[in-house]
Each structure stands twice: as structure tokens, then as C-alpha cells.
């Protein structure tokens, strides 16, 4: 009774902002991190501090997040235009193979091979774009087809077995060493993240992606080049997937047809966890980054917990908890709405 609904003045946006999806996710991330910092750090037999609370571990987390993080960045604009791209994981595999071939079989120098691989990745994304925009086919189905096609091509090209290895040290530097204190690939990841953030949040491109996601016909009537914008999003996804393939190859020192298997699902999970609506229109790049971080910290933190270690089940636990976190994030968005729907009816007679 004494409860007064806040007047729609200055206090509301503040509160709303502190309770926005991204902020909630940030709290979760901090809580996760602190928990693992205290529960996952120990001193080992030799008296060395080991586990989650070491810089090495933090850098590893960063290193391991780059490829899936890149794919999640690639998928954010796609999902904001109300599309989906299931083929990014397969394209990572295909690009890794193409890169290996260009370098090893065609004898191109590494920089040139990278450049060609990126172009081929963009072209593969262009195949998705072509089918989706010119024939107006549902992205889910098109990319389900290319998901199979790209992986199949990678296997067919290598006859399943050719593995490209023996990359030069200078190339492996990108995946295995540090530069200016951070894992080298993290710099690339941050650069791409910044670029995608600016694209999505500070340019007319992001604006039009949103409009297309919310009302594709409306965007067309507003004179936005809908086809070109949608195509751009898929080409960009292909390009970033190829970049992720390069980093993957540099990290493992090998290019093989099974690279990136199942990564698309992790990436989609991260994007959705980050607050991007699967129906398009809403979402943010920083949300995606938080989603990637939340999953990565969870996965790596669990692996440092003694209990989990004794169960030999870090992978399973983190998968389980990621699924649960995703469900929580989804329901968290809906439950308050459902509750507020119930509330007025319950109090109505008293008024």
C-alpha cells in the first residue's frame, strides 16, 4: 500500500540502466570471477601459487576465447538483422584447410596466404548472402546447408586426413606467444571487437541492421539498401570466420578439417546470453563480449576448482552450467514481465 511507483523522472533511467541485461551480465561475470578467484586458487606441492588466480590462467582464458569470441562477434550483426549463420564453425574448418593448402601446397608466403584465405572466407560468406538475399531464402536453412557443405568440402579436399603442420615460428607467434604483455591473438580479437562495436553502435550500418531486424519491409520502404546490408552481414561473418581460422591454426600449429566443430553453437549461445534477441533488432556488441567472457570464465574457472578436478568433469560441468545460465538469462527477461502482469490484478480490489 505504502509502495509508491517511481515517477517517470530522472530516477527511472538510472535504475533501468543498472538493471539492463548487460549490467546484470556484468554482475554475474564479476561474481563468477571473484568466486573462482577465491575458490580456485591454491598453492601446490612445490609451494607455487597455482590455479585461477594466476596471470597465466587469465591469459589462457583470453587466448582460448579468441576464436569463439570472433565467431560471436561475427554472429552479432547477423542475429540483429533477424538472421542466423550456422555455417561459421564449418567455415572456420574450411578456411583453415584452404590456408594450409595455400601456404603448403601452393607455396604462398604466409601473409599472402592469409590474405587469400580472408578473401575466400568472405566469398563463402557471400554464398550465404547470395542465397539469402537474392532468393529470399530463410537463413536458418541456407546456413544449415552450407554448414554441411563447408565441412564436407574441407573433408573432401583433405580426404579427411591431410593435416597441415610445421608452420614457421613467425606465424605461430600469433597464436602462441605474447605481445605487449597479452596473448598476441587477443590484440587481433580486441581490434575486431572495437571495429564491430563501432560498426554496430556508431555508424548508419548498425542502424540499418537494427531496422532490418525489426521490420525488413519497413526498412525497404525507407529506402535502405536492405539486400546489400544483409549481404554485408553474412560476408562479414565469413571474413571473421576466416580470421578465426587463421588464429586457430596459429594457436594449435595445425590445420585440419575438423577445426571449429561445434563452435557455432557456443558462439550463438554467447550472443544470446549477451542479450541479443534471436528475433532480431535488439542487442549489443558489448553484451556479446560479456557473454563470451561469462562462458569462458565459467569454463576455465570450473577447471580450477578442486572438487570439479577430482570429478574429472570440468567440460561437462561448464556445459551444464552454460546451458543453465542461458535458460536463466532467457527467463530473467520474461519473468518480471509475467510477475508484473499478475501484480496489478492481485492488488486491484484493494485500490
Amino acid at each position: 500500500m505504502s509502495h509508491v511507483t517511481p515517477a517517470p523522472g530522472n530516477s527511472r533511467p538510472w535504475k533501468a540502466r543498472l538493471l539492463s541485461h548487460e549490467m546484470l551480465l556484468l554482475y554475474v561475470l564479476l561474481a563468477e570471477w571473484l568466486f573462482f578467484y577465491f575458490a580456485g586458487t591454491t598453492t601446490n606441492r612445490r609451494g607455487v601459487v597455482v590455479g585461477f588466480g594466476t596471470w597465466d590462467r587469465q591469459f589462457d582464458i583470453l587466448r582460448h576465447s579468441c576464436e569463439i569470441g570472433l565467431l560471436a562477434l561475427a554472429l552479432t550483426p547477423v542475429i540483429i538483422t533477424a538472421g542466423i549463420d550456422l555455417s561459421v564453425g564449418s567455415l572456420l574448418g574450411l578456411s583453415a584447410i584452404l590456408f594450409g593448402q595455400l601456404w603448403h601446397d601452393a607455396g604462398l608466403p604466409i601473409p599472402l596466404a592469409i590474405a587469400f584465405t580472408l578473401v575466400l572466407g568472405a566469398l563463402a560468406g557471400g554464398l550465404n548472402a547470395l542465397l539469402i538475399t537474392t532468393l529470399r531464402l530463410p537463413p536458418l536453412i541456407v546456413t544449415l546447408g552450407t554448414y554441411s557443405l563447408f565441412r564436407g568440402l574441407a573433408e573432401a579436399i583433405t580426404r579427411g586426413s591431410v593435416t597441415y603442420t610445421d608452420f614457421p615460428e613467425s606465424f605461430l607467434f600469433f597464436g602462441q606467444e605474447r605481445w605487449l604483455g597479452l596473448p598476441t591473438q587477443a590484440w587481433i580479437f580486441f581490434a575486431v571487437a572495437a571495429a564491430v562495436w563501432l560498426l554496430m553502435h556508431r555508424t548508419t550500418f548498425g542502424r540499418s541492421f537494427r531496422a532490418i531486424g525489426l521490420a525488413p519491409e519497413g526498412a525497404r520502404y525507407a529506402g535502405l539498401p536492405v539486400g546489400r546490408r544483409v549481404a554485408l552481414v553474412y560476408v562479414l561473418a565469413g571474413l571473421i570466420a576466416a580470421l578465426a581460422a587463421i588464429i586457430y591454426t596459429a594457436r594449435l600449429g595445425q590445420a585440419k578439417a575438423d577445426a571449429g566443430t561445434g563452435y557455432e553453437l557456443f558462439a550463438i549461445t554467447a550472443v544470446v546470453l549477451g542479450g541479443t534477441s534471436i528475433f532480431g533488432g535488439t542487442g549489443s556488441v558489448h553484451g556479446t563480449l560479456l557473454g563470451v567472457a561469462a562462458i569462458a570464465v565459467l569454463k576455465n574457472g570450473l577447471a580450477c576448482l578442486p572438487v570439479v578436478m577430482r570429478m574429472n568433469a570440468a567440460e561437462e560441468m561448464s556445459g551444464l552450467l552454460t546451458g543453465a545460465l542461458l535458460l536463466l538469462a532467457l527467463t530473467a527477461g520474461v519473468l518480471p514481465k509475467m510477475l508484473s502482469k499478475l501484480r496489478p490484478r492481485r492488488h486491484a480490489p484493494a485500490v
Partner: protein
Amino acid sequence: MSAAPLLALRRIAKSFAGVRALRGVDFELHAGEVHALLGENGAGKSTLIKVITGAHQPDTGEITVAGQPVSELTPASAQALGIACIYQQPALFPDLTVAENIALRLESLGALGRVRWSARRTRAAELLARVGATISPDAEVRSLSMPEQQLVEIACALGAGARIVIMDEPTASLTQKEQHLLFSVVRDLRKNGVGVIYISHRLEEIFALADRVTVLRDGESVGTHPVADMSEGALIRYMVGREVAQIYPPAESAPGEVALALRAVGCASSGVRDISLEVRAGEIFGLAGLVGAGRTELARVLFGLTPADTGEVLLRGQPVALRSPQDAIAHGIAYVPEDRRRHGVVLDLPIAHNMTMAIHRRLFPTTWLRFGAERSLALDYIRDLAVKCSSPDAPGGSLSGGNQQKVSLARWLATKPRVLILDEPTQGVDVGAKSEIHKIIRGLAKDGLAVLLISSDLPEVLGMSDRLGVMRGGTLTAIFPAGTDAHTVMAAALGQAEKGAA
């Protein structure tokens, strides 16, 4: 009238997340009457209807059907009580056949009930015949035109043997002929003791059809009166709470040079053919015609949505190719579309974003967003067009229909067009907003814009146009000067007149 009303609503209230759509409405419907429901946009008419059909649960209030209080009305139970509704937007299943659509409404099969396809078909054919529609029961609904779909809806209501039939702006997209057909169906219903609730923004229909009228204002009922006791002016006063002059603003300047000229323009895929006309700067060229005459299709051709495949379009004497909306915008053509909720505004985006959507290139030449410039532009238009909104950041969907239309208009004015195409700019807009929009249009013409005004509201095209074209079957059949009488124009639209002078 009889003692127990067919339907009685007491103090019905309903809010949506803070919006109080209904604040306590009282309403009564008797058997054998046509009861009109009137009110401005957003007055709560549709919401009230949805409460009656069980689509919305009221927050408070009582509903009595034929003397029996009902609680927890659902669409299914409302149907069982004999309540049928024809919504503003037909709520049919586009992928299913007409027969199946009708059956889904009428048959209350258990989940394991068997579907009798041939019986469904015969029944559908019979009902369609009763409403005078020549539609095959096997046609998929997506292939039907809007009025045809409306007829299917009415057939459903008839078939349900409904005691209470609700029509929410049923004539918004009907042709004159179909409208007369509809009227006779309504009168038929009344004769058979059915209570009809009839919603329309067209006052002349209410005078032609209704027995009583209830006016809603801001979610409250402000009174119920026999229609015979009311005058148009009085009704409008009730609705708006003030006087509104229903006078169209006159032309104030002479037209200048020819801004837009079409020479035998046609587009096979959209059924538009052989159209020649000229619109001068500062002139309002009206386009009248029945629904389906192809006016929207012509507009889409001019805006590059379905590019022309024959003929020539000239802008200020120069032939131009209009292959896409981007081309059209670049040449100074703007198009305010008919379906404002789907095409005109993106409901989930802020007003400011909506207003700048067509001028990304000009406002943000480097593609870099300039929030300040955007905001001040939006504020300018909000002030100039008197858009009622809380801020430029409010989502388009939070506005009433008329204000959404103004946002849509602002988007196109921002492109600084030389030719403005308006497609049904006042459809579903209340009287107050309507006359404001008329004033804006006239003002634009005065500033030298060439305006192509498409409207199915005959008084509107007649009153606003400096010249008037009539379309029929995808082509232009006649062009009349201002001041032509309604009868002549209607006759041309129906194809009963000889070709007018061009």
C-alpha cells in the same frame, strides 16, 4: 427496448504496462440493434472489443451476456456465447483454405474429432453465397484480396449463428459495392434479432446504419444516444471534446512548372499499365479509385519498389530511371506508404531514428552517426508537425495512429523531396489529426512541392485536390479538374463514364 440487454458491460477497466486503455466503460447492446462505437484513435474501441471477445481479460468490471454474468471470458467461451467479431485486420490463416478457415471458427471439434472435408466445403460455399461473395472455398486465403478476406470473416460470423456480431472498421478497405453488400448483410442481421456493434471513423456510415451510438473518449464512455438525435457536429464534439471544422484548406498559390510527368508508364508484374499524367510543383494531384484499382501499385512503381518496365518517367523534364527506392529518393521522390505499421514506421525504434531513416546519406555523410544533429532534426519536426510524444527517444509504437502518421510524414519531409506521394494519409486517423494532416499537406504544396495524393476517402480527395485522376483496373481512366462532383468521380471509378479530358 427489452428489459435484459443482450450484452452489458459495467465499469470495464484495462491497462497495458502503465497505459490505461480503458478506465471504466459502461456499454449496453440490445437484440436487433446496430450500436455504433465511436471515438478518436486510441480512445480504446479496439481494446473494448477485445474484452468482449475474450481476447483481453479486463482488470476490473463486469460483463453480462443476456442477463447472465460471465467471468473469465476466453475466445472459446465467447464464441460459445454467440459472440463473433470481424477485426480491423482480418484474423484469418493465410496458408489455409477458405473452407478450412471457416471451419476452424465454426466447428468446435475435440482434438480427436474427425475433419469432414466435403461437408466443410459445402458449408463454406453456402455461407459465402449468403454474403454474396464469389470466392472458391478451396482458395488459399493468402491469394485473396483484403475485402475478400473481410467477406470470409463475415461469412464466419454468419455461420456461427452469432447473437452478437462486432465489426471493427469493416469498411476501411471495402469498395463502394462491397460496402453496400456489407450494409445489407448488417441490416439482415438486425432483422433477425442479432445485436451488432459497429465501429467506424466514417460518420456517414454511422448515420446510414446505426440505431444508437456510444462515444468513447480517453478510455471512458461519454454517453450513449440514439443516432436520430445526433448531428455530425454534435458527434464530433463528443469525440474530440471541441469543435472541429471539417473544411478543407483551400489552395493558396498557382501551380508552377511540371515536376513529375509520366508517359505511358506500365509495370506488368504489378498490373499497372499505360499511365500518363503530369503533376506540377505546388499542385495536389488526387488519385481516386476503388480499392484494388492499382493506385498503391502505381505509387510503388514510382518509388522504385516494383520498377516500371514500359514507358518513361520525367522529373522536371529529365527522363529518370527509378530502379529502387534509393534511386527515387536521390531524385527527390518521397513516398508515405499506406500500411503505416508495417512500412511507415518501425514501431520498436525511437521516433528520432524513424525520422532520419531515409536521410542517412545526407545527415551522416561519413556513415558516422551524429546524435546531436539527429536529435535536433527530430525535435524540429516534432514541433513543426505537432507530434504528441514524450521525447524523440520514445519508440514509434508508443504513439497513436495519427502521430505515427506524422512521424512517417516527417521522415519523408526530411528528405526535402520535390515530389511527395501520399498513400491514404488519413486512413484510420481520427478527425482532429486528420484536419491537421490536411493543413500540413496544403502547406507543403504551398511551399512548392508536387503532391500526389491517393485516398479512398472520396470527400478528402475531392476537397484536397487541385486536379483529380481516377484509376480503374491498373490504369488511369479519367482526369478531372478541382470542384468535380462526387457522382461524376464515382461513376468514373466504377467504369460508367466516358474517358475524361486529360
